[in-house]
Structures are given as structure tokens and as C-alpha cells.
């Protein structure tokens, strides 16, 4: 038969001698017949002793414990055992803590140090640390990932090939800064039909001698197209040379240049 909360209270009162004669006789008769109740008596007795050792009894219970409960040598013996066990476990806990503290961090691998630090945290701190780590990882990934430049507006110029250079009187197309757009789109008409099987590369030569290779080259109709972000544009005179890159990676420069002046 399952025990009720009342049964547990009655057992505790019985052990502390707090029941009247009728209550005492009633519980004793049940103890003779009910296995669950008898087992509860044994456990409750042990727990009462532990509470006394832990100083967890109320003043009234403590008084009753000392004057009534502890009246047999058997119970005194149980109290001695409980006290010894309590001291032993306290000592073991202190020793365990001291051992953990005394291990020099240098004796631990970084993984052990992290594990030790992790297990010492509360659940709340662990959740917070986990969330912070997730934010840092996502943030770092976002920062290091290759950013694709995606201008929203363009200024477009179409260049035709000049077979003579600037010195020889070639005409340069002019673009004025500020551009008024995110990027300059330069379309270069090819003198020959586009080779669909190949790709194109554009070399940008500045009058100061700087050279820049542009690999991202679009192909449109009979033109190749490059985009230069406005922020990278600097005033000066430029020549753009176009190369045809075949599938075997051999390059062939298309004769002539496209001239551009940025003012």
C-alpha cells in the first residue's frame, strides 16, 4: 500500500515520541503488518539522525531527539556512525577540492583547462558563454568571407579601339569625377567577333606606370565589359589592353588599346 504524506509525518512524530498513546498504538500495529511502513520507519530514523548531525532540526525537534530518540544504545551507535560518515565525507570533499585547486595549470593541457573551467560554471554562465562564442564565430566568418562588390548604380562608357597610342594622337574618352555612380562600367568594342570558347583579361595601364590586371571581364554582344568601383578611380590617363585567354591558358593580346582619361 502506498504511503501518504500523513504517514511520513506520523512516522517522524512517532520516532520523536510526539504521538499520544492511541496514535502510537495505531502506528505500531501497522508497523507489524505493513512492509512499506516498516521500511519507511528505518529510512526516516536514518534521515532524522542525519538532520541532527547536519543541525537541520528545529529547536523543539532537537530537544525531543536528545531526550527521547537517543534513549537507546542502538540509536547512539547509529548517531556515531552518521557523525563519522558526515565528517568523512566532508573531509573527502575538502581533499577533492584541494586536489583540484593544487593541480598546476601548466600540468594541464589546454583542453583539460577548458574542460575544468567549463565544468565549474553554472548552467546560466555556460549558456551565455555558448551564445557569445556563437556570435563571435558568425561575426568572424562574416568578416573573413570574400566580399563580392555589388554596386547599385553605374556610369557607362563605351570605348572603341585605337590602333595608335596617345602620343600618336589617339583620342581618349573622358570621364569626369565625381562619377555620380557606384562604379564605372567600361564597354570595349572588339575588332573581331567574340570567341565564346575563350575568356578575356583586361590590363589597365596608368600614365604613372602602374599596371592592374582585371580578371573579371564580362562578354556582351561584340564587346568585353569591366567594372571599376568609383572609389578606385583616380584622375589620370589610362590605356586598356585586352587579352584573349584560351582554354589551354595561352594568352593572345588583341592588337590596339582603349584610351580613357579620368578628370
Amino acid at each position, binding site marked *: 500500500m502506498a504511503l501518504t504524506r500523513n504517514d511520513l509525518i506520523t512516522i517522524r512524530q*512517532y*520516532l520523536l*515520541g510526539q504521538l499520544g498513546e492511541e496514535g502510537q*498504538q495505531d502506528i*505500531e*500495529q501497522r*508497523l*507489524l*503488518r505493513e512492509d512499506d511502513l*516498516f*521500511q519507511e*520507519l*528505518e*529510512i526516516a530514523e*536514518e534521515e532524522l539522525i*542525519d538532520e541532527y548531525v*547536519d543541525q*537541520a532540526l528545529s529547536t523543539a525537534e532537537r530537544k525531543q531527539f536528545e531526550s*527521547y530518540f537517543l*534513549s*537507546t*544504545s*542502538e*540509536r547512539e*551507535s*547509529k548517531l556515531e*556512525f552518521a557523525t*563519522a*560518515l*558526515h*565528517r*568523512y*565525507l566532508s*573531509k*573527502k*570533499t575538502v581533499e577533492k577540492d584541494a586536489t583540484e585547486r593544487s593541480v598546476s595549470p601548466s600540468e594541464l593541457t589546454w583542453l583539460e583547462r577548458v574542460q575544468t573551467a567549463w565544468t565549474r560554471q553554472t548552467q546560466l554562465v555556460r549558456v551565455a558563454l555558448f551564445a557569445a562564442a556563437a556570435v563571435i564565430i558568425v561575426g568572424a566568418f562574416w568578416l573573413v568571407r570574400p566580399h563580392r562588390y555589388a554596386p547599385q548604380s553605374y556610369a557607362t562608357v563605351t570605348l572603341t579601339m585605337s590602333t595608335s597610342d596617345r602620343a600618336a594622337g589617339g583620342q581618349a574618352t573622358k570621364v569626369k569625377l565625381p562619377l555620380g555612380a557606384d562604379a564605372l562600367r567600361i564597354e570595349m568594342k572588339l575588332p573581331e567577333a567574340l570567341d565564346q570558347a575563350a575568356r578575356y583579361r583586361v590590363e589597365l595601364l596608368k600614365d604613372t606606370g602602374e599596371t592592374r590586371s582585371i580578371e573579371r571581364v564580362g562578354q556582351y554582344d561584340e564587346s568585353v565589359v569591366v567594372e571599376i568601383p568609383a572609389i578606385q578611380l583616380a584622375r589620370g590617363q589610362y590605356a586598356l589592353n585586352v587579352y584573349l585567354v584560351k582554354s589551354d591558358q595561352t594568352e593572345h593580346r588583341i592588337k590596339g588599346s582603349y584610351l580613357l582619361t579620368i578628370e
Partner: protein
Amino acid sequence: MGDLTQAQFDSLLGWLDADRNAAASKYERIQLRMIRIFACRGCNEAESLADETIDRVAAKVDWLIANYVGDPTLYFYGVAQNVFREYLRRKPRTDPSPGPASGAAKSDSDERSHVCLDNCLEHLPRENTSLVMRYYEGEKQAKISNRKRLAQELGITLDALRIRAHRIRGDLRKCVLHCLEQAPAQCNEFGPNAY
């Protein structure tokens, strides 16, 4: 059991149950529980009073077999009440308790107990040692939380954990008492191989 004859004992068992094994089991249960009840009443001679009760019941067993109707345990209980009243009448005034042990004696006793606990815990199955250490770990709220966590880990209810811890503690106490009886008082001569 005091002056009980074999014939009386056999009759007593027959009254408790027609099956001999079941009867023996009931007899042991009644005897153990009467001892506990006398002890709960603060009696230091609980075993002796339980024997006295059984002797008196056994002396009347033929009459009981012929006339008594009802649960035999209740008859035992009635007799136990009388035995206890007589005990109270003849009981000498309680001697004052010996008082707390001196500091040195207490320290020595602690040390011996700890050596015995070390040894006994070592000889328990590992899972039982771990359960005892964790069951009694912490204080107040921390202890309650530990026990909930432990019950969850073991996949049992708190009540089942309580019973398991009680049984292991019982075994541990028996081992420690035996160890303390076997070991010499001087803890220096007291090693794990002493028992």
C-alpha cells in the same frame, strides 16, 4: 527465544501459517518488528523483551489455535504491550549517560572510523560507493539538488534512490562496525589488511 520447546515452536509456526517456510518468514518478521518497536519506545533490552513476548504467546499457542480468531500479529502486539508495562515497572532508573568523549579520544575514534570507512567503501561495488558519496554530498538545498540529479542519471525515482541509499548505508555500517570491533584501538596498528 527463551524457554520455548521445539513442540511449542512448531505449534507456533503452524498457527502463523500452514506452510512451514511462510510461517518461518512471518515469525522472523514479527520478531524483528517487535524489537524495533520496543527500541522506538526507548527500551535498551528490546531483543530480550521481544523474546519474552514470543515465549508468552508460544506458551498459549494450543489455546490460540483452538480459540483465537484474527490476525496473529495483533495478538503478539497485545502481549508485547503487557511485557513492556512490566518492564517499565521493574526498570531501574537510567544511569546518566557517559558524556562526550575527550578531545584526544574523539580524534582517535574519528581516525579509526575514517580508516574503516575508507576500507569498507573500497570493498563496496564501485557503483554503490559512488552512489553513497554523491547521495550524501552537499548541504541543505545543494544536497536536495544532488539527489534529484543522481536519481535522473540512474533513471529511478527519488523514493527508489532513497531506499537504495538506505540499503547501501546499512551494509556500510555493518562493515564499519565489524571493522572497528576487529581493529585494535591504536590507529597506528590499524591498516586496511587488518580485516
